[in-house]
């Protein structure tokens, strides 16, 4: 069993601070999404995200952390660290940590909280809260845990192959993005979509949420260095540059095609850039994050209109931003990964002198495997829940019309009416 190395106070401080930053992203995401739904569903959207902090935390302590990070199985971990046994004293398998294992456990927990929360954007306005409860728990164990093990654990098969994912391009974004698509396939469209307009009810929330996400993402990416070192600083700068460039990329195409630079476009572009830089954050440098951001901003802008062509109601564009952004980032890493910025890069990207297509092959396998596993298993989970739960996973037509805030939570978001 791996035992503790020397604890570095600086590294520990940064990872603990980063954990708090990443936790803050989930309420940030809640407001990013919450502003985009209709006023009658704002609380339901906030609640689905907020609730993830509750349920996932408990499941993480009981089971999921151990399944993801303990044991040397290629496909899934073991239960040695389940029920919080030995978590404080035993390192996760394959990591040579300079921080307390509990700091690692807490940091990884925050990723497990936000990943399923990302899915809520797709299923907005029509899923029962009870269905979300069951889906969240089952998805965490059956989808998030194995994929995190494959990619993040040195024992996992994708990690062993040499696929690179600095902070979760596959584990977090592609995983949630494809799951979002699978959920809406079973769930169906919102009543009246796309015939009736369902414009965002409060874009200021969305801008605020995007700002919180950007802020928290420094913990997400730079914290993934698991140390307060040069790689963390590189990841920090890369994160900011990619978000900035992607905002410009999105707005540029929006201006050319639609005539206006919109606030929703600025927020969405920034998030698309943050998604795309996530797998690359500690493996690239120089101008690469800016190129990655520009490409991601432009491609995600165009990707958001695909749903109208294929007729799937991914309400808040989880596919367009997270699936597409995650794929863009994971594959661009095959071009830009550079050992000059991180010695962990053993096969450099195509655009780096001395680089090859070797890494790209592993990146494609990692992307494909995540899409396949998450897509198929999510589809099965939602389908089974829909059959097992009385009345299915979707609210009644009347409840959907009334709004989820009142029907699922017996509350309203805004009581501004005077009569």
């Amino acid at each position: 069993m791996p035992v503790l190395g020397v604890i570095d106070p600086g590294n520990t401080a940064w990872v603990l601070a980063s954990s708090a930053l990443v936790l803050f992203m989930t309420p940030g995401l809640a407001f990013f999404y919450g502003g985009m739904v209709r006023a009658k569903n704002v609380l339901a959207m906030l609640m689905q995200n907020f609730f993830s902090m509750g349920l996932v935390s408990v499941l993480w302590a009981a089971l999921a952390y151990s399944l993801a990070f303990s044991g040397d199985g290629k496909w899934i971990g073991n239960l040695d660290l389940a029920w919080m046994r030995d978590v404080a004293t035993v390192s996760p398998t394959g990591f040579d940590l300079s921080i307390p294992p509990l700091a690692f456990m807490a940091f990884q927990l925050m990723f497990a909280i936000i990943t399923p929360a990302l899915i809520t954007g797709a299923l907005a306005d029509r899923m029962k809260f009870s269905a979300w409860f069951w889906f969240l728990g089952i998805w965490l164990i059956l989808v998030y845990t194995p994929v995190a093990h494959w990619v993040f654990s040195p024992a996992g098969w994708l990690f062993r192959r040499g696929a690179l994912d600095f902070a979760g391009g596959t584990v977090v974004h592609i995983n949630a993005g494809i799951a979002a698509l699978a959920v809406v396939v079973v769930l169906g469209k919102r009543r009246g979509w796309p015939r009736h307009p369902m414009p965002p009810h409060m874009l200021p929330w969305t801008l605020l949420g995007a700002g919180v996400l950007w802020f928290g993402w420094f913990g997400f990416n730079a914290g993934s260095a698991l140390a307060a070192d040069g790689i963390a600083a590189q990841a920090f700068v890369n994160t900011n540059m990619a978000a900035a460039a992607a905002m410009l990329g999105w707005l540029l195409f929006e201006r050319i095609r639609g005539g206006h630079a919109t606030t929703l476009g600025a927020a969405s572009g920034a998030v698309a850039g943050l998604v795309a830089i996530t797998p690359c954050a500690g493996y690239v440098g120089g101008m690469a994050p800016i190129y990655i951001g520009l490409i991601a901003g432009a491609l995600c802008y165009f990707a958001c209109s695909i749903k109208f062509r294929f007729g799937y109601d991914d309400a808040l564009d989880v596919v367009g931003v997270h699936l597409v952004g995650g794929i863009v980032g994971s594959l661009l890493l095959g071009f830009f990964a550079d050992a000059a910025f991180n010695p962990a890069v053993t096969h450099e990207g195509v655009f780096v002198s001395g680089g090859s297509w070797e890494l790209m092959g592993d990146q494609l396998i990692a992307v494909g495997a995540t899409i396949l596993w998450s897509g198929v298993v999510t589809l099965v989970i939602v389908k089974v829940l829909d059959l097992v739960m009385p009345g299915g996973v979707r609210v009644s037509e009347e409840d959907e019309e009334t709004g989820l805030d009142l029907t699922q939570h017996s509350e309203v978001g805004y009581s501004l009416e005077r009569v």
Partner: protein
Amino acid sequence: MKLIVGIIKPFKVDDVKDAVKDLGVQGLTVSDVQGFGRQRGHTEVYRGAEYTIDFVPKVRIEILVDDGDVDRVAQRLIDTARTGKIGDGKVWVIPVEQAWRIRTGESGTDAL
């Protein structure tokens, strides 16, 4: 008695209120409403997707007047609310059978 009902552009509300007050109108009621006429709606763009919003915000103004004042008040309302551009709104008049002032119990034109 008649009830003058006007659907007007929201930014004209204050002008109309002041103009009819000058004619001696003692009270009126306004409410925020939405609808469409020849102006149709407007277009909003979210993440590249265009939405046509069919209903435009307007203000509904209701003024209860004596039969003899109808034309004067309605005409002043129309003149004040007009911009000459599409979407200026409409005015119509409805006969009113009876009216009471709740506080005093007065009825008919005394209640106006």
